[in-house]
Each structure stands twice: as C-alpha cells, then as structure tokens.
C-alpha cells in the first residue's frame, strides 16, 4: 500500500504543509498558483527524499525545493506580467528563511485574534475569500459600495495585524 518513502513524505508534508503553503503563497501571490507550485514541490521532494538527512529539520530543506519550483513557475509564466520582480522574490525568499520562526509565531496567535472579530467581519472574510464570491456581488449583498467593501477588508486585516503584534509583545514580557 505505501512504501516507506511515500509514508515518510506523507507524514512530513502533513506535518509541515501549512508552512510550505504559506512560503509558496507569499512568493507567487495567489492560492491557485501556490497549489500548483506546491504540487510540483511535492514531486521534487518525493524524488529526492532519500537525500534528506532525517537528523536535520525538514522545512529549511523543503523550502529550497519550493523556491526552485517557484522559479520554474515564474519561467513558465513569464509571458504574463508577474506582480513581483525576480530580485524581489529572491529577497523575500531569503527573508522568509530568516523569519520563519517569527512568522510561525504570528500564525500561532492568529486564531485567538480571529476569534475576536465580530460576526459581520467573519461573514465578509468568509464570503470573499473562502467562498470566493465576486467583490461586486458581495458588496451588493452586504449593502456596501465596492470601495467600502475593500476598505472594510483592509480594516479587518489591520485589526488582525495589530492584535497579533500586541499578543506577541505581551508574550515577550
């Protein structure tokens, strides 16, 4: 049913999938392409898993593969204007490697902050990004202008960012 290699990979990917997804998502800019790139990354990891030193942490090793797959995806997609320039992607990837621990901490406290959002904000976020309702339609349903909807979502992001920072600062004390 499963040979040892795919079992090991499945376990590692299950354990670290969120971190890998976030890494790729930040570098490609959208979840659909991030999923594609992550699939390619998993294939690359599967092929090279025997080179992985089980005594070392998995994520830094896996990020290298993910980064290469991001570059390959950029190469394939080069006819479309990509939002980020090559050198910027390189800088972001380097920074992500360095800030991995900090970024993980932020994600850890996010649920607590998210839980503080009022129902209306939850509905807006869920409808727009989870159910992927078109902005125009969502604005209409919520009785807002399109511009106000985006401003509201921007406000929610800012509230969450501030909340995360406050919680992390409190932990430092």
């Amino acid at each position: 049913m499963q040979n040892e290699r795919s079992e090991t990979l499945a376990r590692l990917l299950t354990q670290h999938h969120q971190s890998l997804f976030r890494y790729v998502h930040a570098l490609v800019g959208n979840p659909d392409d991030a999923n594609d790139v992550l699939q390619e990354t998993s294939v690359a990891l599967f092929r090279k898993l025997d080179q992985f030193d089980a005594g070392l942490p998995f994520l830094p090793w896996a990020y290298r593969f993910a980064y290469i797959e991001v570059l390959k995806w950029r190469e394939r997609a080069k006819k479309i204007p990509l939002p980020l320039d090559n050198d910027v992607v390189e800088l972001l990837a380097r920074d992500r490697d360095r800030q991995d621990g900090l970024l993980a901490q932020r994600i850890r406290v996010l649920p607590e902050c998210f839980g503080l959002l009022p129902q209306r904000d939850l509905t807006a976020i869920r409808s727009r990004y989870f159910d992927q309702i078109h902005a125009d339609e969502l604005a209409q349903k919520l009785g807002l202008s399109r511009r106000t909807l985006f401003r509201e979502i921007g406000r929610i992001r800012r509230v969450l960012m501030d909340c995360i920072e406050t919680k992390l600062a409190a932990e430092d004390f």
Partner: protein
Amino acid sequence: MLTDQTRSSLDKLVADLIDQQLEPADREQLNFLLRDSDACRQRFNALMDLQVGMIELAGQSDAPTVELSRNSNPTFGRQSWLLWSVIASAAALLIAVGLSRFTSDISSSIAVSTDQHDTGSVRIAQASAAETFDSVAMAAGQTLTLNHETILTSGMVQLVFPNGAEVVIEGPSVFTVVTADRLSMTTGRCSVYAPEGAEGFRVDTPQAHVIDLGTRFSIDVDEVGQTDVQVIEGLAQVQPLATSDKGEQVLLKDGQARRFGKRNEVGGESIEFESASYRTGLPDRIVRYAGVDPSPPVSLLASVTVQRGGEMLQYDAGELIGIEVIHFMADENRLNVAAVADDDGLARATLESDRNLATGLINPGGSITPLVADPIMSGTGGSTPGFGFRFKTPVINRVGPDVVLLELQSKLHAVGGDGFHVSPLRFSPDLRSHTIKRYDITMRSAEALPAVAFQLPFFTDDQPLLSRRLSDAARIQIPNLQFYVLAVGIDLTDLGYKMADAVEGLFMQDDLDDDQRMDPVFIGGLPDMKETVQ
C-alpha cells in the same frame, strides 16, 4: 520601522495583489518598496501569511456566508483549499505534472455548482471517470455556470441543455457553456443529439459554428482548432468562420463529413464518414456505490449501481455473488490485510465474506506482463504472484460489467486506481488476460467516498496468509492518511468469454506500474438479471 504612510501604502498594495487588482504602476511601487526595505518585506510576508491563515480560519468558522446567486460558486473556496491535501500525494502529483499547463489562461473559477433545482440551467446528466484540470469533481446533477471554461482532462460527461439537447463530451476537451443553447468547444470531441424542440442548438469551434437542425452529429476539434463535423442523422448547418463574412454556409446531411480549417477550401474539405465517431451515451461502467450509513465515511456496502448495455441497474450488496479466495501470493510487501480493530477472525474473511469497504486482502504480488497460461496456485515458492478466487456461484457473462471490484486508495497514490491484470483461472485458446489501468470511480470522482478507519495487521513469518487468523498478527500499523473507496467493473467479454458463458473464478495480479499494489476490499459478481432503475 515603517512610517504610517508607508505601511498604509504597502497594506493597500498587498491587498490589491491578493485581490488581483494590481495595476502596472502599483506593481512598480510594490516592487520598489519591497526592494527598498527589510521592514516592508517583513510586513509583506506577514500580510501574505495572514491571508492564508484568515481563509483557513474563515473556512472553519460557522460564520454565515452571504446568499449566493446562481453564478457564484459555493464550493470554490473549499475545493481550492482541499486541493491542498493533494500535495501529500506524491504519486498523484507525478501524473499531475505530466498534464500540459493551462495555468496562464484558465479562469480560476470553477464551472459547476450543486444547484439542482433550476430547470433553465445546463446540467451534468452523467459523468464517467470525469476529471478536470482544476480537480473539480464533475458529478451527475451538478449544473454548469455559463461562460466558465471547463478543462476535462479525461473521462466523459453528458450534458443536458434546457431545450432537451444532449451532448456527450469526451476528455481531453476544453469547453464552455456559453448560453442555454450554445456550447463552445475549444478543443476535443463531442456528440450532439438535438431532439425535436432543440433545433437551433449551436456548437462554436475556433473554425466553425455548427447549428443543429434536428439531428445527431459529432464534432472533433484538434489543437489548432481544425474542426471535423460528422452528421449521423438529420441535418446540420455549418458556418465556416474563415468565410463567415461572405455569408458562406454549408449544409451537411446524414452520412456526410467535412473538415473545416483555416487552410481548407471554402466550405471545408470532404473527409471519410465514420459513424463510430458518434457516442450515444456514456460507456457501461460502475456508476456509483452506496454505504449502509447514508453519510460518509462509508463502512458497509449497501448497493452498487451499474450501467450494463446502456441500462442503469442497481444491485443490493446481498444480491452480488460472493467469492472464495483460493490463492494469495504477495511480493516483499508484508502489509496484506486491512482490517477493523479487534477483529480476530480469519484474514481471508476481510475480502471473502464481509461487506466492509475498509477491509480486504491488499498488496498482492503482480507482474508487469499479464498471464498467458494458467496461474500456479500451489501455495509454494513457485506459485504465481497475485490472487485467485472462485465465485460462490458462477457469474454469467452479459453485456457491460459482470464483476465489481472496490479498492482502497489515498490521495498519495495513483488517482486512477491501482492498475491490475485479470486473467481466467484456466486458459483456453479463446481466453486471454485483460489489464485495467483506470477505474470507473477514481480519486477525482465525486462518487469516491471516504472509508472508515482501518488498521494493517501483519505477520513476520512465512505461513500462508489464507490460513492465518488476525489475532496471530505480529504487529499492527495504523495508516494516518484518509483512504477512499474506488470502483471498477470488469467485463468478462474483455477476457474472451462469450455471451452467456458461466465463469467460475478469476485471477488478479497488480500490474507493477508503480510502487503501489492493488488493495481490493470487495469483489462481487453481478447476478444475471435485474430491473432498470432511474
């Protein structure tokens, strides 16, 4: 540290990036900020992560979503996020990468919804192993959203339009339902049936508009848009696009076939007529199965629905003809039994006499080439890898599938199911082995249901498995992945049996096309006769 102004500009740019609304000038500014400052990059990474975390949490929350109109798609977010568990599917991925890349020009939206009540919409009447590029399951009953491109990478779907027109589309195809009576085929093959009242139904291809005048016709569009039209019955009007400005039209009647392309002569070029190019419906197959418990995960098999000779038949599990395993030979893989906890019965009973879809005799041995002579089932070292079984009463060969096989599969493994060879127990000059590479219900089918949890007891000595009790297991492994139940029908005609031949048993071997072996959890013969169901 960021100034308030920089932070505010950056936040807005990142939001536009997320909402895919970044204008060229914004793009320049975003890159400038990120290139310029560590603090900007730090906030960028944090904002992008926030977006991922937020969607995940929003999906888990019970916040009400706004009421959707028909054009919205309530499943998209979930699908998109679920897709992600596919990353754990190394083997599936190897297949996925082999697909050509359409990423640049597909709409990120999904073209199906589950609205089954709108009679004005275009509906999927049936789907057979249908897989789309974006992994959205296509299942009977779903409606298609207008103006959304669907990339059907394999399998077939039958669409029904509100005016009664029926279209069978075969993968690989790229198509869009444009209006309630118009289909656009970018590439691929479709067969159209327009009964009375559906005249005027139109299929657009890159090279022609084909208008139905009460007919059956097939259209085959190649990668450069060249369009072959074959009229099986009635009349179709073709407007070649290369000449449309001159009002050229070509009428094709039954038995006529023409090819329309950029370089062809006006009115297309005549090609050989092939009536076999037309499909009246989907192939015979296992359509679905159901568990006793109506809500997944599935445990005990309740029924199987099979299309045989074009007819839809439903069999209760109790009507299916059971088997007795007479031989089981694995290779080095010692995980050969999937069982429920605390079962101390015979290992063979997991496949033979129970309807539990999470238990069976798994990972049998196999061979790259199928058998051409009788398998050796002595139980000794020289035995043929694989497993043999007898039906409790012989199965009579009829049209379509005669035997149903269900197996366990995870997203980590081949999406189409584990390939296998099926052979007669005793060869004769008319009989042969048959190889099944693709199941009727695959990992991508909406009909594939998750299985209940199971465990993998295994034995460390070489005693024959068929005499073992599960309580003798040396150790037990517990899989930590979700497994699904796939299904395939076996048509005994494919092994050379003639209609009405009585078949006593079969031999099966994994086809060794990858590291994974087949994992059968239920095998049953179909009884001889049955009434049609809706």
